[in-house]
């Protein structure tokens, strides 16, 4: 179980003598990912998804708030003490090309964490080889043909599988997949998504999925939760299918409206929400963060910031004063 409360992260642009610019990447985010559970972060570019993911994986520090892993609060610990906790959370990077060391064979890549593991648990050396083969099989690769290869001899999809296998060597409790399929060929994407889902089911690993492609979020499991993030704030949160089918926050709605419609297969939603384009957001820190772009904004939105809440008749949490269901997503023609 990994939970976070009020996580804040501010980047200070360094290298300037005067007038350091601050980027508020996260403005107090709460999250909770149960053991074996799944969650997806979606949102447009720069909203802070990666930052949050990296904080969860222990690769980045945070300024305020608290991250708690299996009941242990991280902020009280020294970096060395945090390490074993964060090892339970493994990150799968977006770019499978840089995630593997080009100078090391897959065997060497897997061997290092496994031998560490063997040493810690007192397992024999033979276990290392067995386990290496095992994790490769788990991710759907043939150990015999893959182990001796260098990364450049593998395709993107295979590499991403190796990356996942490598994460599995330390028996993680959670995988953080940051845009894990966006650089993989269209025809293969689904394979990776299915793998993640499969791992969840078989190994009980929880999965945190970071993406800007809402549709893929569905594929980590229907019990998953969806976090819609806008400018460092969670604006809507709920079960994946609920949020997709009945979004209430205008931002979520505009995200969903923006998904291209497969004409011929689908029927566009009737009430698409087209937001104003963000031209200069940095100054609108008052009120609702989305207000300036929101087609439905009211006076209240300019002055006051809505917090994540549950309101009557809305099953999911949202941060909007005027939550309203709109029919924004495309439906398959067959359904109509």
């Amino acid at each position, binding site marked *: 179980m990994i939970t976070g409360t009020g996580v804040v992260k501010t980047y200070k642009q360094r290298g300037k003598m005067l007038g350091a610019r601050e980027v508020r990447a996260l403005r107090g985010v709460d999250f909770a990912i149960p053991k074996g559970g799944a969650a997806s972060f979606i949102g*447009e*570019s720069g909203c802070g998804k990666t930052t949050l993911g990296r904080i969860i994986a222990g690769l980045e520090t945070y300024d305020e708030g608290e991250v708690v892993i299996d009941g242990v609060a991280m902020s009280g610990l020294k970096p060395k003490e945090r390490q074993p906790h964060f090892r339970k959370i493994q990150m799968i990077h977006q770019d499978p090309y840089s995630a593997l060391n080009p100078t090391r064979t897959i065997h060497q890549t897997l061997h290092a964490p496994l031998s560490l593991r063997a040493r810690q648990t007192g397992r024999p050396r033979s276990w290392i080889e067995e386990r290496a083969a095992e994790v490769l099989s788990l991710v759907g690769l043939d150990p015999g043909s893959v182990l001796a290869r260098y990364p450049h001899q593998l*395709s993107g*999809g*295979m590499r991403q599988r190796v990356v996942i296998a490598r994460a599995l060597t330390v028996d993680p409790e959670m995988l953080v997949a940051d845009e894990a399929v966006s650089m993989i*060929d*269209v*025809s*293969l*994407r*689904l*394979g990776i*998504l*299915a793998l993640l889902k499969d791992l969840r089911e078989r190994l009980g690993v929880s999965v945190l999925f970071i993406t*800007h*492609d*809402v*549709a*893929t979020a*569905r*594929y980590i499991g*229907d019990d998953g939760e969806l976090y819609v993030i806008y400018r460092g704030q969670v604006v809507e949160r709920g079960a994946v299918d609920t949020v*997709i*089918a009945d979004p209430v926050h205008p931002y979520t709605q*505009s*995200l*969903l*409206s*923006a*998904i*291209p*419609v*497969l*004409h*011929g*297969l689908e029927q566009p939603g009737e009430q698409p929400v*087209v*937001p104003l*384009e963000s031209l200069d957001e940095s100054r609108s820190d008052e009120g609702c963060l989305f207000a300036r772009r929101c087609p439905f904004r009211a006076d209240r939105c300019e002055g006051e910031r809505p917090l994540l809440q549950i309101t009557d008749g809305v099953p999911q949490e949202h941060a909007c004063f005027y939550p309203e269901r709109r029919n924004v*997503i*495309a*439906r*398959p*023609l067959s*359904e109509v």
Partner: protein
Amino acid sequence: MRIDGLTVVYKTPAGELPAVRDVSLTLEPGSITGIVGESGSGKSTLALSLLNAVQPPGRISAGSVEIDGLGDVVGLGGEQLRKARGRHIGYVFQAAQNSLNPLKTVGKQLLDLGRSHGVDDLRGLVREAKELLGRMGLDGARVLDSHQHELSGGMRQRVGIMLALVLNAHVVVLDEPTTALDMITQANILKIVREVHAERGLTTLVITHDIGVVAEVADRLAVMYGGRLVEQGPTREVLGSPRHPYTRGLIKAIPRLVGDIDEARALPGRPPTLATVPKQGCVFRERCALRMDVCDDVDPEAVLQGTRTVACHAVTVKEHA
């Protein structure tokens, strides 16, 4: 625009290998055609060859690209070719974010473009550019005064479109116009493409690896695989009832917002690279569920079937059966 039997080869240590093989395609005036294909399928190479701009070590080894009012582009060279680019064919770059000179303002680059094409009325050109930018929802004057790094990705993409259209080109090629943009910006750009296309009566070619993008904007859809056009036809029809096993697989592999998750399925295997494209026979056979013996030796012809062309032995057999 008519592309006929176009073949483009790249010189590699293993000899000259075709990245685009025997592609024939007709772009109807006033239509938007979309080409989809995975990485390495030869989309960019095809797009570049429409301007006879394949970069060495590649070259067009066969075929022609006829453009109305211009003739065969493949035969053009030197000044003629240069003048055709920009004037007749506008090109919006893959990763248009980086298609601007970082050291010059957009306005200056616009003037350079005008001078290159002998535009006398530079003021008029600027006016036209501002108008175009305004139409795309930007403050023209400000944008023209900006350097590339002062513009966001979506703005740069719009500038790219503006530069492709400002000289009144009637054919526009857009290579991955929305890759690396986020969803909302992508939706906006696609909308602009559609609007501008309609307003100016352009002939547009959109190239992308994202079927959604094509589905959103294009009238006609062509699917590329391993340098070959495997299927083409009206978008709705192709999407609604794909014939080629690859097209079918591709559509099946798209994660969908609604519907049964388990219906979606990845294609087995992996897309070929230049070196791994089969030299003879069907390019898709390695991953094909309908593979037959004939696929190993004979490259399927693109066969016209009603409004579409499909290049597949299995489909042809079925049709004739």
